[in-house]
């Protein structure tokens, strides 16, 4: 996935000199996860560079650049360090287009590694997609494969709206996959049905897809047929694909690694109630972290969703 993201940035940097890539340590070092490695050498320090250590500064200057016609792609070192920039995201990046009645669109991409599973320090393991998804004016996407990472990032950079592009850092280097060399894009707002099934619909995204796939092995053994939907786009959300699936299976589980309450799972449950109420045969289930701070590395396994845990919940839902 690291290479795919780098490649998408490379393609857009080459193709469009309005694209500017910056953030803490993204220039010389290529970012703490080496996502931007080599890009400064290739495109120069006025297009790919280190910023001072200040997240409000990062987002705020991106708002200005976007107003002036550039297409900034900024990196937050970890999703947990985005908060100092929250005001600039919610008050400006998300609003300038509406405020100015379309005069100043905000083609900004805010990239951020998110999620747990890498034995990191405090604040390095958070999944905050539901915070951003409720901000009117931004879009939120999360890839689960190198292929999607590339396609979604191309779309994000070409979007004239601010996109929160969240990278499941746990699988940065976990999945090997052939990704087309050339440019391609994946539309926002379209979920991807990764596996067809009949007994239960499982919606997930990011690093959780892999865990669901592990659960599906167990489910298969138990004779349960799972339909797996990779959400890809948290906002706008693809309600049609989810509803269609549930109209078939009658059961749905949403798997996320964020806290339980007020999260993406609840939103999907609401959508299903609105769009497929009469087809529901069991309560829509959320399989998520707890309403707690992600524990530090030694306790993180309690918080994260594993294949086994997901299978446990699948079985319960199917038996309901």
């Amino acid at each position, binding site marked *: 996935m690291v290479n795919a993201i780098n490649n998408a940035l490379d393609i857009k940097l080459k193709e469009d000199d309005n694209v500017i890539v910056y953030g803490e340590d993204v220039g010389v070092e290529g970012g703490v996860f080496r996502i931007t490695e080599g890009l400064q050498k290739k495109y120069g320090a006025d297009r790919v560079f280190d910023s001072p250590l200040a997240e409000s500064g990062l987002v705020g200057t991106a708002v200005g*650049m976007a107003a002036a016609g550039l297409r900034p792609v900024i990196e937050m070192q970890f999703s947990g360090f985005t908060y100092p920039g929250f005001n*600039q995201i919610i008050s400006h990046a998300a609003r300038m287009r509406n*405020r*100015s*009645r379309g005069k100043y669109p905000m083609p900004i991409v805010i990239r951020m590694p998110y999620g747990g599973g890498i034995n990191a320090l405090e604040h390095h393991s958070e999944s905050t997609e539901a915070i951003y998804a409720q901000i009117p004016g931004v879009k939120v996407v999360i890839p689960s494969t190198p292929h999607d990472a590339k396609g979604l990032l191309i779309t994000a950079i070409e979007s004239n*709206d601010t996109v929160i592009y969240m990278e499941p850092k746990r699988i940065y280097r976990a999945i090997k996959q052939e990704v087309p060399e050339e440019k391609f894009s994946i539309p926002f707002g379209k979920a991807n049905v990764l596996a067809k099934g009949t007994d239960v619909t499982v919606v997930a995204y990011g690093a959780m897809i892999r865990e669901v796939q592990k659960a599906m092995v167990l489910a298969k053994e138990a004779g349960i047929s799972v339909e797996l939907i990779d959400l890809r786009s948290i906002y706008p959300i693809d309600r049609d694909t989810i509803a269609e699936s549930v109209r078939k299976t009658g059961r749905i589980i949403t798997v996320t690694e964020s806290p339980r309450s007020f999260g993406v799972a609840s939103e999907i449950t609401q959508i299903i109630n609105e769009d497929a109420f009469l087809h529901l045969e069991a309560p829509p289930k959320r399989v998520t972290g707890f309403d707690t701070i992600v524990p530090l590395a030694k306790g993180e396994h309690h918080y994260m969703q594993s294949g086994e845990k997901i299978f446990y919940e699948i079985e319960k839902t199917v038996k309901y």
Partner: protein
Amino acid sequence: MFKEFDPLKKKTFRLIDNSGKVINTKWFPDLPNEKIISAYKDMLFARTADMQTVSYQRQGRIFTYPPNYGQEAIAIAAGQVMRKEDWMVPAFRELGALLAKGVSLKEVFLYFMGYEDGSAYKDAHHVLPMSVPIASQLLHGVGIGYEIKYRKKDEVVFAFVGDGGTSEGDFHEAVNFAGVWNVPVIFIVQNNQYGISTPFRMQTASDGIAIKSVAYGVRGIQVDGNDYFAMYAALTEAAKQAREGNGPTLIEAVTYRKGAHTTSDDPTKYRTKEEEMEWDKTDPLTRLKKYLKSKKLFTDKEEDKLAEQYKKEVERQFVEAENYGPYPVEDVFQYHYEDMPGDLAAQKNDYERFLKWKEARK
């Protein structure tokens, strides 16, 4: 200028005194008389607009409004120094500069009447909408400055903030980024001595604001913000430096908010009559008029005539704004995204269905 008035020397850059007399010829700008007269006229227009708006507000014809009363010289000088291609990044108390950039008074009214259309600035070039979250706009100015430098354009950013705004983290990050990136941005701090009710001494223990430039390695200068000539000269010089690639300048414009913070505020709660009277002596219009009169460039009669004319013009634009009409449902939705998400379109449809039902019930 920036050496002579290095903020560490604790001198204020001032060119005329309260009686309109030139007290510093070295830096006095070489301006055609018409330009000076037109500055005065613009200040008068801004003040007239302000005064009338406050009274409209009392009549319940417009919502909250933040008057510029007492601070007109700053915005008007900036308005004259800014070129068409230069960028203006306003806070919300720079009426004169907005007008100079081509924003219509009607748009300003629309905004404070509660229409986003008032921020569309249809005929203005390179002006961001007013920014309500204090100090946040300064970073936008720096981002624009980056674009100017990157594209090697001959443009300058004029970014405004108040004294209260200098306490926000964004002020710090903005001036600091500007220093590191060496971008053509002029930060204009209108130090009008108050946040809302909070006096300047409760915002910071520093000796003024210009001195804060030292923390960022950028040029700084404290200017008498009620002295049109001083503001004009300082802004011109800062813009020149910016155009020559010499980066940002932090200008502290010392002034006084003679009116209320907004029409919902009552300053008698937190300041004294004496203080107000003391500052009255420095009023920017009075001073410039005294200068003009001493040069026989302007008369009270002309002023009276103009004032009448301006009142009518203000009234005309106000009434136009008042008749702007209802707020279409469309306008709630259409500007959020380039392509409206399906879900949002559905919300719009649902709402329109409700409106029909409501209509039918009548």
